[in-house]
């Protein structure tokens, strides 16, 4: 199905979303939808039911862990794999994210090819 190849990226860093869009969209053939804040990100996830969510931690209004919790507690979005991609190399945040059932926790800077592999693995 079409939405299986769709990645919803919830991140407010425009330079980064533009980079990911160029890479995952143009080089890897995914359809990338970008939403810069948590509230709209959660409603977009329900509407779009993407194949994967790529989620930042630090964002305005609602942080990534709050968004993850909302996604996992709603039956419409609970089964969508969520990869955290953040600048926080922090065990405590990582453990919290994994206990909230994040599929993966990746720390920037990450090699784009590694990102491609981890996304492919999470899709499986």
């Amino acid at each position, binding site marked *: 199905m079409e939405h299986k190849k769709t990645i919803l990226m919830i991140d*407010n*860093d425009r*330079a*980064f979303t*533009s*980079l*990911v869009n*160029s*890479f995952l969209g143009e*080089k890897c053939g995914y359809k990338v939808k970008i939403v810069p804040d948590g509230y709209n990100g959660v409603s977009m996830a329900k509407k779009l039911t993407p194949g994967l969510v790529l989620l930042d*931690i*630090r*964002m*305005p*209004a*609602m*942080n990534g*862990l709050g968004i993850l919790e909302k996604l996992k507690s709603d039956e419409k979005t609970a089964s969508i794999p969520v990869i955290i991609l*953040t*600048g*926080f*190399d*922090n065990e405590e*945040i990582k453990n919290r994210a994994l206990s909230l059932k994040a599929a993966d926790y990746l*720390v*920037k*800077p*990450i*090699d*784009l090819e590694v990102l491609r592999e981890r996304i492919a693995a999470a899709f499986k």
Partner: protein
Amino acid sequence: MVKNRILVLDDEKVIQQLLVRTFGEDRYHVETAEDSYLALKRMKEEPFDLLITDLKMPGVSGMDVLKEIKSVKPHTEVIVITGYPTIELAVEAVKMGAFDFICKPFDLEQMKTTVGRCLEKQKSDIGRPDQKQDHPVQDETIAAIRKLASEIAHDVNNSLMIILGNAQLSLMEGAKEEDMKNSLKNIFEECQRAKSIIQRQLKFSRPGKGEIKEEE
């Protein structure tokens, strides 16, 4: 009025003079020492309320002076200054009992405020039982330093991601000249952003403790 006694230990004359000018004319009695032996000797001869010490010095380091003075004169407050700040040093200094850790070049207003706070704390500590086992101020400072380190790493990681990612994109097979130019532009802009992040952090902002801060 009894003047607070401050000893400045730094092998740089310029720093000594700067601190003497800043505090000497005020309500403080300021002396200077350019090496650690002399500083320790002076502090054992006569009481000082506060030692402001550099870390890197020939012979005995500022950290060793801090340890020594805290073991023989535990009520002497110590403010550490250094031109080579690292998180490990800051944490070690605060654990050893330093009141604060200030990076060179420092802002004189910041230094005045810190010295003021430090001596206020000392005054309010007088008469209290020895608090050697209980360091709420130090714990708070260590938490603030750790938080600051995490913030800096987060911002730098974000910038590195943009820089490395764009470099990688433009080196990929089949990249067009236009894409490469665009990546270079992104790299350039990100370097400017990283520069401003570092400048902001050097002003030694101290974010609050605890949970993840929401972005403005």
